[in-house]
């Protein structure tokens, strides 16, 4: 595939992601995971690694992710196309709303659609987390034996520890840094065992 074709594909894919994602935070994770894995642009592991990078750098998750995937697949032009793609739908829709329907959010149809969308996003993110969790705990595939592997036990301990810190409202950057340090410690310890 030529770079131009790849850039067009990046633009259109991220246009779709930008146009059909509602809500902040990780609302776009489910659709992005599906599209990026379908195209084979990144592996699930690379996506999860990058979420950590995105948590530790400024800027919206959506923009960070689009720029990263664009760069990885087609260099600078790819980054520009993917980022433009994810921004364009919001930009146009907000311009129209700001210009014509100030009462947009009170519209009955919009409210009705949102009644279904808001809980749907929760369910979809939960499913995305399940697949991320499977990759974190069972990177080589799942079987009952995998519950007693070094990888599973150490990952699970780190996960529980970080969960406690995250709920104590420790800043995500520190969660990333501490889990990185633990990962390094556990990795070298595993070599000795």
């Amino acid at each position: 595939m030529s770079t131009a074709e790849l850039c067009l594909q990046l633009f259109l894919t991220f246009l779709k992601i930008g146009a059909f994602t509602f809500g902040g935070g990780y609302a776009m994770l489910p659709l992005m995971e599906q599209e990026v894995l379908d195209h084979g642009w990144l592996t699930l592991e690379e996506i999860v690694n990058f979420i950590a990078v995105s948590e530790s750098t400024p800027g919206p998750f959506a923009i960070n992710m689009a720029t990263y995937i664009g760069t990885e697949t087609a260099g600078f032009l790819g980054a520009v196309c993917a980022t433009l793609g994810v921004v364009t739908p919001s930009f146009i829709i907000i311009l129209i709303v700001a210009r014509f329907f100030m009462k947009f959010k009170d519209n009955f149809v919009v409210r009705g659609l949102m009644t279904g969308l808001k809980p749907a996003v929760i369910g979809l993110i939960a499913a995305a987390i399940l697949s991320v969790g499977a990759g974190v705990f069972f990177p080589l595939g799942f079987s009952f034996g995998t519950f007693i592997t070094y990888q599973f036990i150490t990952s699970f301990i780190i996960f529980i520890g970080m969960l406690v810190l995250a709920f104590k409202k420790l800043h995500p950057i520190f969660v990333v840094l501490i889990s990185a340090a633990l990962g390094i410690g556990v990795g070298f310890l595993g070599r000795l065992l």
Partner: protein
Amino acid sequence: MKEKLKRIFTLLTTFLRIGAFTFGGGYAMIPLVQREVVEKHKWISDDDVLEVIAIAESTPGPIAINMATFVGYRVAGFFGSLAATFGVVFPSFVIIYIISFILRQFQENIVVKYAFSGIRAGVLALLCKSLYSMYKKVKKHVFAYIIMAAAFVVSAFIDIHVLWIIGGCALAGLVYSLIAEKAKGGKTNVNG
């Protein structure tokens, strides 16, 4: 005209700053937007900020982009929205572009590999926390629980594109609202 150009330029620098110093995207931006746009420049009011958030939540796309576009348009029309949106995107773009090269240099390094193996467990925890925060904000009623469960089960165990689930749930929400409205209208019949 000169006044408008000045406003556009101020929008650009303000949103560049917001983009460069906000970790975590959309919602994390709100206090900074309030300070810069409402308190410092007095371009819009606190009520407007609430309005922006409500609109950003019911339109697609990243909240940060929605807010920048909306505030920019309010303050200086189309070119204002262009300046604000560019401003909020540009810092992330540059930072991530540079980081992606650094990441590629080090990804085969054994220490980095171990670090990321720990980080992935940490990220999983952050995702769970973020899911919980979002869950707390959703209005809880039977219909919401049904949709949550249905979206989760279908997405996790059936091989179907996420877009179909999003579309289906939105439609179900609309149908549910119509039925709820009708039921309410039938009982009270006050608003005609």
